[in-house]
């Protein structure tokens, strides 16, 4: 039950002015393996939903091919694709009870009433909905509606499960709870799943792999670890987590990479093939990869603490440095051991080369 997108492009034309065009999805290629859960992550308007709707068949791509299980489904309408969508708005049928909602897809398949009842009961038990079978949708809380939508989508045993920002209408606590539950059920049933979100924490927790998108294009495709620690470009580094960027000149590439920053040379691990000798490159340093100490000549930078937010287990510093417009953001864990600095203190900033990452 793999899903493969080959060169998927979607161009929207304006309904009123047909000469106005807009490329919402641009040459997307991805192969999603059986049982895998892949997240499409990106800012609002980057084309995630459109890509998902192309897979479900609600939207027809302008160019490219969609394969489900190796079968070309370009011309298969949405109702024949055997993919199930969990909508952002849940899209619960307001005129049907919880049971009727969940059994809707089975009924369409012409399955016997008694069997529908069994399957619906079973899924309701799995989802903790057993007591709610005869309720009207209007009598459900947001979290319950979400479960009904999920139950309705998986009871038909779809080949692919599609989620479009399924948690965005829930409050923060319920959101955390539901995302682990979604992941649990996805793994329990082993359904190939695609999950659309603009929330990186959500993407990190539910995915096997993340596809980061911007302006309709894939920016990076990789595991949560790769995306966070080895971003391929400035956009990904900036969008996922927080990052400090330092520009420099590439001096030498051997097993490692030598970069001149601020008239000093540093050695970094080399992962990015786009980085070339004699060209400019950028070092990405996450706040937790930086160390705050007393000012000293060996320090990467020396500066002044502009802001210090003490959170108990961590302290978050913003440090202003001469010659940089952006302050450096650093997080110090275990402040009891590493010492606490106050606003106005002179400090040195150093880093650990293994946690640094160079992009072109």
């Amino acid at each position, binding site marked *: 039950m793999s899903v493969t997108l080959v060169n998927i492009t979607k161009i929207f034309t304006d309904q009123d002015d*047909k000469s106005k065009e807009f490329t919402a999805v641009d040459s997307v290629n991805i192969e999603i393996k059986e049982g895998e859960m892949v997240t499409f992550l990106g800012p609002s308007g980057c084309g995630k939903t459109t890509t998902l709707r192309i897979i479900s068949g609600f939207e027809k791509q302008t160019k490219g091919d969609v394969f489900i299980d190796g079968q070309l489904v370009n011309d298969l309408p949405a109702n024949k694709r055997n993919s199930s969508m969990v909508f952002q708005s849940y899209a619960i049928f*307001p005129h049907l009870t919880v049971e009727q909602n969940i059994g809707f897809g089975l009924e369409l398949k012409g399955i016997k009433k008694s069997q529908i009842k069994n399957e619906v009961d079973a899924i309701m038990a799995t989802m903790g909905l057993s007591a709610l079978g005869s309720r009207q949708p209007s009598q459900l809380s947001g979290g319950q509606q979400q479960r009904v939508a999920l139950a309705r989508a998986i009871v038909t045993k779809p080949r692919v499960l599609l989620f479009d920002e399924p948690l965005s209408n829930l409050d923060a606590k319920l959101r955390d709870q539901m995302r682990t539950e979604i992941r649990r059920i996805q793994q329990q049933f082993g359904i190939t799943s695609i999950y659309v979100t603009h929330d990186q924490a959500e993407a990190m927790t539910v995915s096997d792999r993340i596809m980061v998108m911007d302006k309709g294009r894939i920016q990076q495709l990789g595991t949560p670890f790769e995306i966070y620690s080895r971003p391929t470009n400035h956009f990904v580094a900036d969008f996922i987590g927080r990052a400090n960027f330092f520009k420099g000149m590439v001096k030498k590439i051997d097993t490692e990479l030598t970069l001149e920053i601020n008239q000093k040379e540093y050695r970094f691990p080399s992962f990015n093939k786009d980085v070339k000798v004699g060209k400019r490159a950028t070092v990405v340093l996450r706040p937790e990869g930086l160390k705050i100490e007393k000012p000293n000549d060996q320090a990467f930078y020396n500066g002044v603490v502009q802001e210090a937010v003490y959170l108990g287990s961590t302290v978050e510093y913003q440090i202003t440095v001469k010659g940089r417009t952006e302050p450096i953001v650093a997080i110090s864990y275990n402040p009891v051991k590493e010492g606490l600095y106050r606003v106005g203190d002179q400090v040195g900033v150093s880093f650990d080369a293994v946690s640094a990452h160079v992009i072109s």
Partner: protein
Amino acid sequence: MKQRIISSWHDFIRLSKDPLLLGVILLLLISLVLFIIYPLYKVVVVSFQVDGSFSIKNFTDVMTYSNGYYLKALFNSLLMGVATAVLGTFIAYIFAYSLTRANIPGRKFFNLIATIPIISPPFIGALAVIMLFGRNGFVSATLLGMQNANVYGPRGLLFAQVLTFFPVAYITLRGVLESISPTLEDAAMDLGGNRFTIFRKVTLPLSIPGIASSMLVLFVESLADFGNPLVLAGAQFPILSVQAYLEITGMGNFAKGAALAFILLVPSVSAYLLQKYWVSKKQYVTVTGKPTQSSNDVVSPTARRLLFVVCCLIAAVIIMVYASIVWGAFAESWGNSSKLTVQNFVYVWRVGFESVLDTLAIAGLSTPLAGTIGMVIAFLVVRKRFWGRKFMEFSSLLSFALPGTVVGIGYILAFNQHPLYLTGTLLILLLNFIFRYLPVGVQGGVAVLKQIDPSIEEAAIDLGADSNKTFRKVTLPLMIPAFFSSLIFSFVRSMTAISAAIFLVSARWKLMTVQIMSQVESGRIGAAAAFSLILVAIILAAMAVIKLILRLKYHTTSSILSH
């Protein structure tokens, strides 16, 4: 242009994968062309043709006919249109303002009274004017002792038209006033405005688009009115719709009748387009479901008392009108004898029973069809992309703008030759009613659908439903309240229709309204009143049945009277 063609072609290819959908769309487009556009086209063609070639002779003929008699009719029609629009809107505004803003007592009662005229045939006003102010009128002769009081002419007609159409204005304005949040007035008061200033600077400006809209609608309604002027206008005060009718049925002059119809069409359609594409876009606040009750006191106690008295007066007039109909139905001889009798009903039973059955059959058949087609069109227009979508929406709503007289003339011109020879059949009446009363269903359905998240239907498709199943199992059930509202509306309209239908009735298929008119014309006022009462009783009974079904089967309520 090329882009457009390519994209339309893609739409078509996509649709052709769903043959049922494509079939329904094609069938509807063809029907709309055939039963709405084609009759109009015939009116235009016939009016602009003499001996088979283009000519404006028909127009110069009618304009110079009998020292400009028809020119006078045009002028009178426009005059009545403007007068009814201004007066009707003014009264409706006072009424709506009192009920939504002034917190006067008895609001439910006033609301009910104001909406009664909607369910009665449009010539009830005319009938009442004769009974109250005519030669034997209760007010004129009995109370004031006038002899030979003459109600035929502009004043009597204005009274009848304002009475008939003011509810339409009232419902429009009530919607607009309810949608103005009282917090705006609160805010203005907070800023130190006195009550009258608040009305002048906040409430009134915000309701201007609604007022404009109401005036244009009343103007169109008054121009299209046929029943009232046929009874009340008289030869001294010719009215265009009646003259077009007489030209055709009286003199058999189709070309001149068509020319008059065309002249009538121009101001109607202009006002409608102005309303639809300009005024309605200026509305500041869209009417949302929840009306906000004003809890503040933007109206001073004195003003409230004054408004209450005015509302009582308006209500008294309406009640007097209906009381006179009831009384007249049971009176032995209106104005001459006050003895009560049921002889009018016996007479009506004898001469009119057949027409009652015919009317019920026609309304009973056309109503569910109009309602269903209306819902399907609303669904297609809101949810599907196809070539001809804009046309489908426009043409299905166009009937709002078309005076019945024009449609009636169009139908007899369009369907009097093979292969579409329908004159005198049940079918022509059915088709006319279905396509004339389509707009309410379309409008109501569109409003409902725009509120339903499209992903609800997508969810059904996603679970394996095709477009037919999705519509039947998901969309239609959600549209039920709008559907039943449109059923009530089209039933009421079918039962009370006259302007177009009067051209289409035959010896075999009779309508109650047309029978009532002929009773009025032959001076049998009591019989006409009795007949009208039966008509209203049937409508009320049908409404009760429809509401009962809705309550028992779908657990919802719906009403055209209370939104």
